[in-house]
């Protein structure tokens, strides 16, 4: 038996744990990270909105260079990867090791396609001579999606760690905290893209 004061949860280190829906999922500390990140992105949304008010014609002209179909593909990819992550976390709560590993592998496989589409998007623009220094819209486009992409890469590493842990360690209370925390981080990556996509690609000026 182990009393972990960090979460206030009494956990049997060998038995599966059912999620209680009245506490923060995962490790509370990860939520500090998530909250801080989400607020910085909130600032990014504010910066973009202010820029758009000041230079709406420039923003609209530049927006037309983007490929909304790729943006949509990215959204669908991340949403699906997130879904597999949810399935992996519920499998962990039932102690089902193989199901955890399968869903994590699917989350990573689907997620990795995001990297492909992103690289295609970036390289086509750079070959066309469009970079973060081209104008204010593209500064924000490259920086915000770039920072998001860094978060994505870290997320993929975290998923890989979850998968390795599932392979080599028991699927116990500790593991559930780990996978729920990782899941929350991954859902944050998904959620930020859900906002970036319409903001950058879809908002049309009349």
């Amino acid at each position, binding site marked *: 038996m182990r009393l972990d004061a960090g979460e206030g949860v009494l956990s049997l280190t060998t038995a599966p744990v059912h999620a209680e829906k009245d506490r923060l999922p995962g490790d509370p500390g990860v939520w500090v990270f998530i909250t801080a990140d989400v607020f910085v992105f909130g600032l990014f949304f504010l910066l973009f*909105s202010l820029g758009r*008010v000041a230079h709406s014609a420039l923003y609209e002209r530049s927006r037309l260079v983007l490929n*909304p179909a790729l943006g*949509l593909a990215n959204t*669908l990819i991340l*949403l699906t990867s997130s879904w597999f992550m949810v399935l992996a976390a*519920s499998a962990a709560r039932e102690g089902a090791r193989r199901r955890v590993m399968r869903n994590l592998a699917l989350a990573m496989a689907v997620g990795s396609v995001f990297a492909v589409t992103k690289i295609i998007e970036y390289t086509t623009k750079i070959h066309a001579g469009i970079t973060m220094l081209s104008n204010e819209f593209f500064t924000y486009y490259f920086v915000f999606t770039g920072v998001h992409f860094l978060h994505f890469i870290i997320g993929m590493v975290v998923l890989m760690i979850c998968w390795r842990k599932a392979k080599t360690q028991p699927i116990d209370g500790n593991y559930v905290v780990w996978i729920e925390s990782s899941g929350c981080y991954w859902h944050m990556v998904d*959620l930020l893209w859900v906002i970036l996509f319409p*903001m950058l690609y879809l*908002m049309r000026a009349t």
Partner: protein
Amino acid sequence: MSALLRLPATRVWLVLIAAAVLSWTVSENSTAVKISTSAVVLIAALKVRLIVIHFMELRWRPRPWRILFELWTLGFTAIILGGYWMTEL
């Protein structure tokens, strides 16, 4: 397969996918640009709520986190929509 479809997470995922495709079609095809753009932003806000409430499973306890998150969603929606409507006036 049917077990998967019965899961709340799966239903939420289907809604999210549909909402994403809807946003894209609405924005690409609509002549009522202001309305469709606003709809697209609102759909995004709803999607964010779905992800946080159903994927992340942030419920009403501990209360402060949920409230903070709802305020943040309201905040960014207001900022993006507000900025948009300011340019359209």
